[in-house]
């Protein structure tokens, strides 16, 4: 019963297969067995949010799940946000607004923001602040992350084309 289990799941639209002990955390399975190291570990007790992924379409902390729980599930990680060379509006906005510095919380922040905007496509600034409070960032002070999420929300609502001004 504690021996290795087979796990079949879909990640970023692709089928994957792996085997691991039941105790192996989903975040470790994604990083080590699936080779998707974009998702990071910051605390292993469900507070920092660096490990946030989409689990069956909803943001979840992958350090608080066991890999075996993902049997048959659909995951989205940061590696699945862009479509080839075309960045997701959130990635584009984070870049344009300097919403990352060391980049360690960024994958979790992007996924958390993505899910938040799915529940609230037209948020106020205060709602954005609350909405991204699930991920800790130590570098940016959140100032630019809030701006980036607001800008991405606007693009995602189809209100305007991305503005690539660089000065």
């Amino acid at each position: 019963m504690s021996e290795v289990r087979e796990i079949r799941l879909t990640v970023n639209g692709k089928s994957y297969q792996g085997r691991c002990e039941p105790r192996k955390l989903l975040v470790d399975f994604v990083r080590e067995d699936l080779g998707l190291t974009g998702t990071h570990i910051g605390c292993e007790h469900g507070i920092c949010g660096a490990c946030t992924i989409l689990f069956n379409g909803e943001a979840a902390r992958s350090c608080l799940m066991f890999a075996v729980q993902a049997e048959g599930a659909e995951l989205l990680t940061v590696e699945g946000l862009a479509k080839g060379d075309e960045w997701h509006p959130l990635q584009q906005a984070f870049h344009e607004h300097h919403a990352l510095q060391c980049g360690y919380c960024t994958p979790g922040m992007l996924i958390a923001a993505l899910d938040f905007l799915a529940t609230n496509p037209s948020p106020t600034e205060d709602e954005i602040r609350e909405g991204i409070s699930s991920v800790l960032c130590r570098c940016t002070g959140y100032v630019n992350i809030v701006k980036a999420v607001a800008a991405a929300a606007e693009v995602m609502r189809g209100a305007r084309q991305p503005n690539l001004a660089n000065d």
Partner: protein
Amino acid sequence: MRVSPTSPMTEHGMPYIGRSLLRREDRRLLTGRGQFIADLELPRMLHAAFIRSPLAHAHIRSVDLSQAAAAPGVAMTLSGVELARLLPPLPDTQLSLPSKWTSRVEHEFHNPQQPGLAHDKVRHVGEAVAVVVADSRYAAEDAAELVRLDLDPLPAVVSGEAALAANAPLIHDHLKTNLFGAFSMGKGNVTAAMAGAPHKFQRRFYHHRYAAMPMECRGVAAIHDSRTDSITIWSATQVVHWVRREVATILGMPEARVRCLALDVGGGFGLKGHVYPEDLVIPFLARRLGRPVSWIEDRHEHLQCSAHSRDQLHEVEVGFDDDGKILALRDNFILDCGAWNPIGGGVPYNTAAHLTGPYKIDHLAVSARTAATNKVPNTAYRGAGRPEAVFAMERITDLVAGSLGLEPAEVRRRNMIRAEEMPYRPGILYRDGEEIVYDSGDYPGALQKALDAIGGVGVFRRRQHEARQDGRHLGLGIGFYVEGTGVGPFEGATVRIDGSGKIYVSSGASSQGQGMETIFAQIVADAWQVAPDDVIISFADTAGIASGSGTFASRSTVNVSAALHHANERLRQKAFAIAANLLECAAADLELRDGGIGIVGVPGAGVSLARVAHAARPGWDHARPQGIDAGLEETYYWEPPTVTWSYAAHAAIVEVDREVGSVKIDKYAIAHDCGLVVNPLLVEGQIAGGTAQGLGGVLLENIAYDADGQLLAGSLADYLVPTAGDMPEMVMVHQHTPSPLNPLGVKGVGEGGAVAPPAAIANAIADALAPFGAEFNATPIKPEQIVTAVHSAPPAT
């Protein structure tokens, strides 16, 4: 990148310096293609887990590894006693003070050397006593649980004052004292000045223990190559050359056979700015086992064994006159250093040197003692001793104002050094041993800008008065600091024109998110009139440059830009000589243009940098003129004459809910001067991040220990890092007084944001609760303290 070489010039006459270029490093970091230490996979790699002490202070009677060694997947176990026979300990002080300082400042230092694993005693909860290496971290932790520790408890010492009391239990018995170090400094005659001062008072200020808490913990991986008997170390460090030096020394290997790299590092803030025992143990294990070994610190370990900071207790006496002019200042302080002191005297001396800040205070006496206690070692964290100084000084300024019924801003103005008095010599030394010279700046101007940005003092006082009628408590607080940046001893840069024509740059600096791949590309692109994409930035690798200091103390932009300036200049001269040879003209007729070198006034007569690089090669058919050696590379080590001085004014308006004790930050403004700004977007990012850490420090973050030395902040559930919902909007305004001390005129900006917020917020809360006569002279300021302060004082009305 969307910027072309033909973009319009900035006010500096350069295409890239001064512009908010978007970052090149974003591409990999936004798509999950960064490579942090935990992402590194090496063939047949093993994983280490450390066994850490559950007690704060104890003799180690025995460490039984037998069951652990037999556990599944275990390759090796090692105790402190075994390791002590094989490896010497870490050196006693990694951040040395120069002889210019040691010969002129009265001091004593007693620093023990920390072994890789504790073997005689454990001296803080979390100190490592043994290590297990296994085929996975899971297996290593299983084995670690089987280790039997026999510890003989000793009484724990949990405060600096207790450590220095007579008959205190000794942390390091052979030192016969818990005093790691002491120094005194000052100027004038404080005793006489204090005696003659019309007013004086004394206060205690306590700046509590908190920590850098980067989102990425530490990590070290190493591989030993038996063919060449060399070691490669990857460490999440800010100081690759230090790591290489210490590992080479301790393993008895030439530095040429030890290479250290940092990959993407998830935040450092000073915590990753020195060499740790794990930086030595992991390479040692890799060499011993003949297999790569990796150790990735988890958050629980991080809280109990990386580094903490601040934790200073100040006893201050101030003498002043009827106008609020501060005449004399005496400060005796104790720094609670924890069980080891890797950084030595740097942090407390920063406190002393920055204490008087922007103010003219003619009589100063500071004495500092660094005490050993049974806690995690205390090292540098963003600000590195300055927040503690600013907290004391800025609270004093407000208290002086309060005692005379003056506006705090006015008392500051009356004491501040004015722009026309620059350069100003406070009459004390910096930690580099040089006399401090505030080289440039406009302190009153910055103060005014910050106050204007929050709407002005007069407008605020009216709002405050009206709010009080409604039973609401608004407060205004100021925090002003000056900061010595760009400290030595040196930093180097190597510039080489690659055969492709691109410009390769390496340095001893390394990035933990500061955007160095972008800003140094901007600087070099302007120097060579190329595009940033034509510049290859390759930092954080000892193989890239022979000597390096590292990134800490707000020093990299200052020092690396200066090193680049000189390296570029020499390289340009050489390139022009070769180009002149190719174009059969004089070097004086040439200019840099179009990504190459051409004859002035003759469009089309030019050569590409690639061609010049090719021509510079050694061997047959080279195209170098007589007297020009082969190669197109320069290395320059910049040794700054001394530090250059940044400064900022922080102003906060808060609303205090006195029934529950919560503090809401209504407005927060920062008026900042870091001289020439290479990339405004990135500079503002540094200020915002630092400010958030300062605000977290004063209101939320707390490393608490109990009387037995047990760490009460054992997880992020207890150590409260601010979230987006806790942070205010930040208004930033800038001043630019270029530094006269380096070619570009830059000043450091990395740390500043974290220095002022505790003072600004404490002052704001005290201002809000002025009717209750409450003072806030200790951090953190918890809601309960506010409620207690309000209830225990009769209202002034």
